[in-house]
């Protein structure tokens, strides 16, 4: 009996030892030591980004396939989720338009960097002409991508970047600070300049999410300093876990919580559901990144006013167009823009990134036009 009591006491002490932690929000470290660069507040003009010289890698002795048919493989973070189904759709559209590209999507069934590396490795062995990727980890994926480059395979990234010299170009859906601004401004509009909010994200180690949150921190400090950041919770990519976490937040803070950010296409609908179930629609705002299909019920019931995203179909489309341009020699180091089919001319920023455009906002008016 004594041992039992001791063990339980020890466990409780262990737990409470950490309870002395101050606000959980103050714990957020941003996870990658990179500097943040918040945009100007409101609709103020942003300084033009300083020109950065090209910093991408180079395919070594790539065969000249300008105009010829090429085989491209797309290895996203994982297969079997709606977001990457959408990017695949865009790639297939581009392939059909171009007529001389065969592209297929293949990848691990779980977002594990180790698995993704093995997939890319296998395709290098198979001998494809181009690899498109969305990295689970920017540094870990670099060795295998460099291997691809050294074998003359063209490498273009989208959605989640790798180290710049491991790929030739990276199609960025929107700048990190652009997304942060869109999210924070949407939230401020809905809950006011002194509202308090919480964040539901996937994991603290998912690079994109970590950067967005860091930029949101910085932008919030700069342009919405009175908005209170309550805390950030993890929910993997699990629907029900995200729902439970959001519900816990709602119960923990009660009236103090005015808004929830969903940082993944899973967290946002789940948070919306939690708000709906708690009958707090209209009292707690939900702003987040999500695919339109998952959000339709909530946008239609007015629980969610706007969903921020870019168009992943366009993203996939652009990625493949860029790949074709690279192979054809139409896009070279130092170029300032690239022609991308129906999307027109896309800008080159940050040395070797191609910008898709401004974040897209889905709302009640337009959400039914999309099916992904």
């Amino acid at each position, binding site marked *: 009996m004594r*041992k*039992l009591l001791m*063990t*339980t006491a*020890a*466990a*409780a002490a*262990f*737990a*409470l030892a*950490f*309870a002395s*932690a*101050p*606000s*959980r929000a103050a*714990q957020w470290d941003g996870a990658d030591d990179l500097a943040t660069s918040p945009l100007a507040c409101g609709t103020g003009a942003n300084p033009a980004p300083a020109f950065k010289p090209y910093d991408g890698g180079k395919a070594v002795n790539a065969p000249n396939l300008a105009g010829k048919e090429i085989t491209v493989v797309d290895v996203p973070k994982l*297969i*079997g*989720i*709606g977001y990457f*189904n959408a990017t695949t759709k865009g790639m297939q559209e581009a392939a059909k338009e171009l007529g001389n590209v065969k592209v297929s999507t293949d990848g691990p*069934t*779980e977002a594990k960097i180790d698995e993704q590396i093995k997939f890319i490795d296998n395709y290098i062995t198979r001998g494809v002409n181009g690899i498109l990727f969305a990295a689970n980890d920017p540094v870990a994926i670099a060795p295998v991508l460099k291997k691809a480059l050294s074998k003359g395979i063209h490498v273009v990234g989208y959605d989640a970047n790798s180290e710049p010299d491991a790929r030739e170009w990276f199609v960025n859906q929107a700048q990190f600070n652009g997304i942060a601004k869109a999210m924070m401004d949407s939230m401020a509009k809905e809950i006011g300049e002194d509202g308090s909010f919480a964040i539901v994200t996937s994991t*603290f180690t998912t690079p994109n999410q970590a950067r967005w949150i860091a930029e949101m921190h910085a932008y919030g400090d700069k342009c919405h300093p009175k908005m209170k950041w309550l*805390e*950030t*919770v*993890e929910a*993997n*990519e*699990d*629907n*029900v*876990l995200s*729902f*439970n*976490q959001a*519900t*816990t*937040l709602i*119960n*923990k*803070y*009660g009236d103090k919580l005015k808004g929830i950010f969903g940082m993944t296409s*899973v967290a946002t*609908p*789940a948070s919306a*559901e939690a708000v*709906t*179930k*708690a009958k707090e629609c209209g009292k707690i705002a939900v702003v987040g990144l999500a*695919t339109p*299909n*998952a959000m*339709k*019920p*909530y946008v239609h019931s007015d629980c969610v006013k706007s969903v921020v995203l870019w168009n992943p179909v366009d993203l996939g489309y652009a990625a493949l167009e860029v790949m074709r341009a690279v192979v054809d020699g139409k896009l070279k180091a130092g170029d300032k823009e690239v022609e991308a089919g129906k999307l027109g001319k896309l800008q080159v920023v940050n040395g070797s990134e191609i910008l898709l455009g401004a974040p897209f906002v889905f709302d009640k008016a337009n959400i039914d036009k999309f099916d992904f």
Partner: protein
Amino acid sequence: MSAAASPVQILRRIASQEAMLAVAIIGLAIVVGFVNPRFLSANNLSDLLLGNAYIAVAAIGMSMVIVSGNIDISVGALIGVLATVSGSLAVAGYPIAFAWGAPLVIGIAVMAAQGAVVAYLGIPSIVVTLGMWSILKGGLISVTGGRWITDLPNSFHLADVEVFGVLPMPVLIMVGATILAAIWMRFWPGGRAIYAAGGNPEAARLCGVSPRRTTIFVFAAHGFFAGIAALMFATQLRVIQSTTPAGLELVVITASVVGGVSILGGVGTVIGSTLAAVLLAEIASALVFINVSPYWTHAVQGSLILATVIADILRRRRRLGAA
């Protein structure tokens, strides 16, 4: 400890195993309530139960499997598949009863098949269920591509139903299933056979219990409960993700294990696993309420699980005397 021990002894053993969990649940609630009284609000407590009831139900079946001396790694993937099937049927216009019933039938069938392979072909359950996990996961992605299922008809949402206007359906199902399963395992020969087959298969066979048939039966029952869990899982949200929830099997096994089932077979009750599932959910929620640093949440959870497991083992060893 064979199932033929006297009712008083059994009752005493049950009382202490589950009592410890119940004490932990209440104790934790009180402690956290001190730090943040909002934890004890009716809304929070009921949300806690609602959100995790499906794990408790899945743990019922898992406990039976573990008590019978086997294990199942495929249940997480199966629940994902069954939830998708259920949602797809509902969206395709089939009657709701069919959309609810199909997962139960399929769950029973898939699990019973695994049980048959284990029983009659002699393949260890860890191999069969590990293989099945891969097959189900890959199969689900191949067939659905991970599409979101939206446009679910309103009547689909079993979780929204409130019996007598007060009791949420998932909680009712969780409690009801636990009680029924516990009674069945304690008092019906078929249920007690599970303990016998798990504890000492040879002796069981000599007593006329067929371990093979019991194994298939246990897996089938597990499939039934997995089907119910899948329904609860699918009907909670307005949309269904056609994916297999990552790590769910480990959560369910943890609930069974913390609940006191012994992997050596022959010991453990489903009441324990349900209480354990509730406790684990409570811990997860409590950690958010008392502001444990988000980076240390899982470490604290892990150490609490370890502490609970060690305490349970120590307590059991004292009961049995020096082992």
